[in-house]
């Protein structure tokens, strides 16, 4: 049987144009376009690229929801067995688009998806768990290496062949551990690793410690009486009805809401959508997660200067570290711009 493949590329590789055409809206063409030609040869008899979807990197980045929806519809029509995007090398917006569309295709159609980029491409951190990202060099000069690697991995996946570890298969780990039998026992490997360590020779640890970055503490507030304090929460507290559809888990967005006219959180105005804890208490009285009532009391009493009028909120369960960091950076920048002096962050 010949597997049906749809390929995704950007405006540049489709020969439409460079940066000036980055706003190219999604379109689909039959058969292969650009690097798809060589990719098709490498896929051989077993798989056929039936269509190529093309979208401008700028358009995908700025109108992600529309771009994704349009591409998914085009891709869906072909009922492919396999989806391949890129390679994106180190192009950030292209990497984001390839990662996003691959992840979305995989989630929606349940088929294998393969893309390819340089490990530092921002698309990697966001999507490496949701699609297979083949490792490529940092520029298109690596095309000759990237395409064969993508084809080989894609065929292995779609044929259901037994897979080895990510480092041997040439893709960026999807963040999962799997047991494999080694040539040597754990004891023998331990003795060899210790000898290498003692001799100062290189060795490969079988599990790297997770790294948590620390930052030096910010200086203390000197004048609480005149300070502006902001409330932020990861407890999933949102206006009733969740108007911005913040996810109950694995949030990919946060909300900013005006609380300047409120003296307290109430169940009529706010609810929690956090999927990771018992919401009975917070839904009866959201102040137990977002302490607005007490903050207003202290504000009126003059204990501190002013409560920042906006409340930033998201759901803190299963949140990808990359997204959490993104929200933190954006919220932090806004608070700085608006002259906030301190933040109280509540989490569940």
């Amino acid at each position, binding site marked *: 049987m010949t597997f049906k493949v749809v390929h995704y590329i950007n405006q540049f590789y489709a020969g439409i144009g460079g940066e000036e055409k980055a706003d190219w809206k999604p379109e689909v063409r039959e058969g292969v376009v650009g690097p798809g030609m060589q990719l098709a040869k490498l896929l051989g008899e077993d798989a056929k690229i039936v269509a190529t979807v093309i979208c401008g990197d700028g358009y995908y980045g700025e109108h992600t929801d529309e771009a994704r929806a349009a591409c998914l519809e085009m891709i869906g029509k072909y009922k492919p067995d396999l989806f391949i995007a890129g390679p994106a090398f180190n192009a950030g917006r292209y990497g984001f688009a390839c990662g996003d569309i691959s992840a979305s295709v995989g989630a929606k159609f349940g088929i294998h998806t393969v893309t390819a980029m340089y490990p530092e491409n921002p698309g990697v951190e966001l999507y490496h768990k949701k699609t297979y990202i083949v490792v490529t060099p940092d520029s298109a000069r690596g095309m000759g290496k990237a395409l064969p690697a993508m084809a080989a991995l894609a065929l292995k996946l779609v044929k259901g062949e037994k897979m080895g570890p990510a480092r041997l298969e040439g893709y960026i780990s999807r963040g999962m551990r799997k047991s494999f039998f080694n040539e040597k026992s754990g004891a023998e490997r331990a003795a060899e690793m210790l000898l290498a360590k003692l001799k100062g020779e290189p060795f490969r640890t079988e599990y790297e410690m997770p790294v948590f970055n620390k930052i030096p503490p910010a200086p*203390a507030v000197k004048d609480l009486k005149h300070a502006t304090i902001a409330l932020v929460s990861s407890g999933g507290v949102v206006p009733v009805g969740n108007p911005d559809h913040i996810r109950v888990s694995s949030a990919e967005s946060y909300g900013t809401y005006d609380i300047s006219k409120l003296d307290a959180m109430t169940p009529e105005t706010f609810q929690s959508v956090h999927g990771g804890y018992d919401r009975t*208490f917070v839904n009866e009285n959201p102040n137990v997660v977002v302490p607005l009532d007490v903050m207003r009391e202290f504000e009126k009493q003059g204990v501190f200067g002013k409560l920042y009028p906006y409340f930033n909120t998201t759901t803190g369960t299963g949140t990808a570290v990359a997204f959490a960091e993104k929200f933190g950076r954006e919220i932090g920048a806004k608070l700085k711009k608006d002259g906030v002096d301190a933040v109280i962050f509540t989490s569940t």
Partner: protein
Amino acid sequence: MTREIEKASGVPVVQIATIVPIMLTVGANRIVPGVAIPHPVGNPALGPEGDKEVRRELIRRAFKAMTTEIDTQTIFEKE
């Protein structure tokens, strides 16, 4: 998220949360231990006034945390 807000804004972020060891591991600098996971800044079991009093005490501690100079991660316990 806490860490990134603090880094980007340059102002102290006081985190009120229950699982303190995780706060330490992920790098929160000013930590006030919360009451319980579903209600970190309150205790509904104590009734509306009791719950509010607990909340006031935690926020007062948060004020103390944000006005205290520290050079390393610090947990602000009840006195």
